[in-house]
């Protein structure tokens, strides 16, 4: 009963003493030479949430993802995952804890088939035999089963992006960061992927952080949005709130229609 009560309280207040969010990002900054790629960014992610990260090119979205999964050293601040400090840890141990990402410019393993790429990640939590079965399941879900034996170097751009997504899912994450996986997809392929992501959140209770320029996808997927601009968090709120936020509108140098109406907001 106690846990039920606390859950309700979180629902009401959004905060509760002793409550631990899935991801807690506290004042992280990253500098490259003199460039502040991220400045004092803080936010939290709850289990089963899908959060969109939007912002113009160069805003620091990829840098944020790299910082979270351990590919990028922080200049300051820290990150907790499931209540444990993970900033400073190596990417493989963060992946083992349950957070991984896809790469914006596909970073698959060339010379290996689609299936072998996915198996490699599935081996994190499975022996080879079950890793193969799990991987085939994921490929079926994403409509990649027909090309499972194709060398990833021979895939089309959309197939590469989907293989990135499949590999991310296969490692069994609790929070998966998607860096523009839908950039090359056609509208109908995008709808399929949106459906798959929502289904996975429900069936496997995976949370997502989504960087995407397609506003239609962002609107269809996300519970909350975080807006980055020049490395700073400009705003945070529901898609509707963000659409009305004057600062955000200004950052995008246009009307509110171009923020959340057009295909390419950035």
């Amino acid at each position, binding site marked *: 009963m106690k846990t039920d009560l606390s859950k309700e309280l979180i629902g009401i207040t959004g905060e509760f003493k002793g409550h631990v969010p899935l991801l807690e990002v506290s004042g992280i900054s990253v500098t490259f030479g003199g460039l502040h790629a991220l400045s004092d960014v803080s936010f939290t992610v709850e289990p089963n949430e899908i959060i969109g990260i939007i912002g113009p090119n160069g805003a620091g979205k990829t840098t944020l993802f790299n910082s979270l999964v351990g*590919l990028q050293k922080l200049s300051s601040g820290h990150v907790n995952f499931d209540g444990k400090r993970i900033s400073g840890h190596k990417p493989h141990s963060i992946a083992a804890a349950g957070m991984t990402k896809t790469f914006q410019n596909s970073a698959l393993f060339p010379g290996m088939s689609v299936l072998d790429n996915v198996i*490699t990640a599935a081996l994190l939590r499975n022996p080879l035999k079950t890793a193969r079965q799990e991987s085939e399941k994921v490929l079926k879900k994403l409509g990649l089963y027909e090309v499972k034996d194709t060398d990833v170097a021979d895939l089309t751009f959309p197939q590469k992006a989907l293989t990135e997504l499949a590999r991310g899912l296969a490692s069994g994450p609790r929070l998966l960061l998607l860096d523009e996986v839908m950039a090359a997809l056609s509208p109908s392929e995008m709808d399929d992927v949106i459906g798959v992501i929502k289904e996975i959140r429900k069936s496997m209770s995976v949370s997502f952080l989504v960087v995407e320029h397609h506003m239609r996808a962002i609107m269809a997927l996300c519970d909350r949005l975080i807006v980055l601009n020049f490395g700073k968090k400009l705003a945070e709120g529901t898609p509707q709130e963000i659409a009305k936020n004057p600062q955000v509108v200004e950052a995008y140098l246009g009307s509110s229609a171009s923020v959340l109406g057009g295909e390419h907001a950035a």
Partner: protein
Amino acid sequence: MKFKGVTLNARTAVYLCLAVAFLIPLGMDPDGYLLRIVSMVVLFAAMAQAWNIVGGLANQLSLGHAAFFGLGAYTSTLLFIRQGISPWAGMLAGGVVAAVAMLLLSIPLFRLRGHYFALATLAFAEVLKIIAIHFADLTEGPTGITIPYGEPSFANFQFESNTSYYVVIVALFAVVSLIFWKLSTGAMGFRLRAIRENEQAAEVSGIDTYRIKLGTSMVSAFTMGMCGTVYAQFTYFFDPESIFSMTGISVRVALICIIGGMGRLWGPLIGACILIPLDEIAVNTMSDVAGLGPFVTSVILIAAIIYEPRGLISAWERLRRRAQKKHAAQSGQAAGAV
């Protein structure tokens, strides 16, 4: 082809031929030149296979594997001469010493990227050579060590007939190749391939790239140390210059593997079958003109690398695929004509 109920496909046929090829030298003159060359070919194939574990599987190009070779040779030989410990036990001790040396070397190196590993291993072998020359109390110095010829016995790792050494060398090649094969297949094979193709993506997928690279490089050093012991027992003599040699050992085993096919099980054997006889011919026929022999081999090597950078095994596979396609096209035409 069906043969007494056993279906003989191309692959098993190749393996049968290979097994027969390994048996042929058993019939050679034990004191002959030919058996010696064949033994050297297989020994260098074993050394190149040891190199292949770190160079081919983990993509860490070592140019100093003579270091681990020499550590193996010195460890087992000194234990045998000074303490009377059987070289078989010495071989394992030498492997451990080599692996620990690799560990100490790798901890700082893996943090660096690119060619640092190659340069540092190269320097490490040179430093060991200098140490071996100057600490004569321990190593007998520049004159080298001659293994005293005692009563031939298995325990002493000394045999009457060179044929026995050949058998030991083949067994060594089999053991190192088995280790290579175990690492390159199964779950570890997936992880190593991922590390080779994209280290960042491998890390993010949950692979501890540092630990796996460290582990494979230590296994490589261990097996190279074992080769050093076998070499010492086979030749009865070695000195710092020859055992820690950059051109004679370090670069040579790397080249054998690159020529044959890096990361491929049969690459080292193919490379050794070509490079060792070639070196031998160069030494015997062109020694009048200084440097001509090495020059000719270098030219052949460069040509081979330009023609097929992934090694001769890949070139062979490409030719075979082309032949199969041609064959398929021809039989397709024939079927069409009927």
